[in-house]
């Protein structure tokens, strides 16, 4: 079970990441690794389970462009919180590919990065086990102002100042 922060609330949720292995049965939310999508997708679509696309930080997003519209959930992995590639991936999903579904941070997801994740278009977060839920909710509103436009609000401060 993981703790999912979404819409300012924290839920318990079961999820599973599918890689190259063949899996008979699945439970909870199923996240399919982008590079193994073909292997699982057809079978999974016959079930009535929530399915998400799982992108690793080094995945070349452009290669999956065609697939994106099949999903309402895309998870982006942070293998380490210091790996900042996920921020660019999320922004590309929102700004370039107009992805309207849920973008979820997975992996080394810590309270002190959540604000930036939200700014880059993330909409839900599987918190790492030791992170406090109430701190995470509070962190979503760390700053009331931002200089740059980003996926959460494309208008930079300089367009509001005038």
């Amino acid at each position, binding site marked *: 079970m993981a703790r999912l922060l979404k819409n300012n609330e924290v839920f318990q949720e079961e999820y599973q990441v599918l890689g190259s292995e063949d899996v008979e049965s699945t439970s909870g939310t199923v996240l399919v690794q982008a590079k193994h999508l073909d292997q699982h997708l057809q079978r999974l679509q016959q079930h009535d389970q929530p399915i998400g696309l799982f992108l690793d930080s080094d995945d070349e997003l452009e290669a999956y462009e065609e697939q994106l519209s099949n999903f309402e959930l895309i998870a982006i992995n942070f293998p380490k*919180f*210091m*790996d*900042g*590639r996920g*921020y*660019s991936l999320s*922004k590309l999903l929102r*700004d*370039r590919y107009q992805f309207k579904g849920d973008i979820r941070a997975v992996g080394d997801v*810590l309270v*002190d*990065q959540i*604000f*930036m*994740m939200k*700014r*880059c278009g993330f909409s839900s977060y599987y918190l790492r086990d030791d992170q*406090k839920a109430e*701190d995470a909710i509070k962190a979503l509103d*760390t*700053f*009331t*102002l*931002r*200089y*740059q*436009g*980003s996926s959460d609000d*494309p*208008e*930079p*401060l*300089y*367009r509001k*100042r*005038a």
Partner: protein
Amino acid sequence: MIPMYKYDEYDQRIVDERVSQFRDQTLRYLAGEIAEDEFLPLRLQNGLYVQRFAPMLRVAIPYGLLSTHQVRRISEISRKYDKGYVHFTTRQNVQLNWPLLEQVPDILADLAEVEMHAVQTSGACIRNTTTDQFAGVARDEIVDPRPWCEIIRQWSTFHPEFAFLPRKFKIAVCGSEQDRAATMVHDIGVHAFRNEKGEVRFKILAGGGLGRTPMVASVIRESIEPENLLTYLDAILRVYNRYGRRDNKYKARIKILVKAMTPEVFSQKVEAEWEQIKESASLLPETEIQRVSQHFIDPEYQALNDHDLNDLALKAPAGFQSWLKQNVFPHKKPGYCAVTLTLKATGDAPGDVSAEQLDIIADLADQYSLGELRVSHEQNLIFADVEQSALIELWEKLSAIGLATANRGLLTDMICCPGGDFCALANARSIPLAEEIQRKFDDIDYLHDVGELDLNISGCMNACAHHHVGHIGILGVDRKGIEYYQIQVGGSASKDASLGKIIGPSFKREEVPSVLEKILSVYIDQRHEDELFVDTCQRIGITPFKERVYGQAA
């Protein structure tokens, strides 16, 4: 009005909220709720290092500008929280060497009250943007870089996409004929110029840097319009964030990516990215350029005439003349000049200033330079708007506090990192070597005869003192626990930047001053009339230096 950016309520709220955020993070860290390695990038992005003996707090001086109000606050902070002195760095920052971690949020709050911060002065993020210390007053200026630096500062502050880059990222802007900001050895160099119609444009360079793999930046785009500057930077940073190496921190800077891809391919990749993002709300509107530029309009200069400075020198006490020649820089307005206070007096660590000196400097800047102080990457301080008629008086007052050393640009005005005395990364000490060199070369007439010479001393290959681009560069190395120093000659940080060449095996510290003397004797023997040391080096190559230093057999 001092020509510098004044915060509005938005800017103020952003730094205030940053202080609250870091206060909360520090408390959670002290309560054991944030692990050491997870607190690390949070404190670094607020300028806080844990050094060899104590924490060190690096405070930003955005593009080198300070009001005297801010100078006094820095002095106050250094007394209240530290040992009463501060250190100016090679990237227009100021460091406190002994603050307590627990007190850092209070220090940041005191700084925020005077529109200062320590945001992104360290960490794998976009660092303080730097520029020419003579911005706005230099005669060779084409475009005032200060508004552009402020625009870049705001864009880069808490940029959510680029807070965890593969490695640190430094941007420098130059708007004059001469590059006084070492832009060629920055991750991004921005050269502001005017096209044939007189419109402002930017040439964008990337992939410069020093450290273990020194490289001069390559041109990525010849010309970009002001409204597109920020989206173009976004495109470069995005390509770097996605494709820069993260497996090896020594290969993680953008220079490695640019070299691996080749500058041409890197540029194509950036262009392709930019094509996709250039039409967005991030286009910089003319109104914003105007708003920021308003802060940097000229102060009300008096209508003065230029003095005959040689005539002035004749009336002055001994010692004034060499200071005038070396430390006084021409100003765009008649009757004015800019004055450099070198923080390189023998016996003081290069870049260090005491709180008492800071207070007097603030008073003098109020009296003689419109209430403003500049900081240069050579670790010196500048009064940018001094009336020529006040030069003698100012020189006397600076002499009284030991800040009129007439060595600006000379051998003893060296750039020097804190080295092994303070820094945990260093292989060797830099400050004692700097002092030994200053003691050896204490004859000001000899120094003036040798002329303009950049000497850069780094205590390790991270190259904080930019030794690769010093006319003479010294690198501290560790050989079986003993400090040795490797010497290179012929580097340059100007627009036609070049990297120095190592002359041969390294030396013990006590040998270095006499080795320098030999190197200088080669120059004195071989120079053509008025030829600078670096030009002689580039003309004759390193062999004559090798031969003189190591003997013919080497």
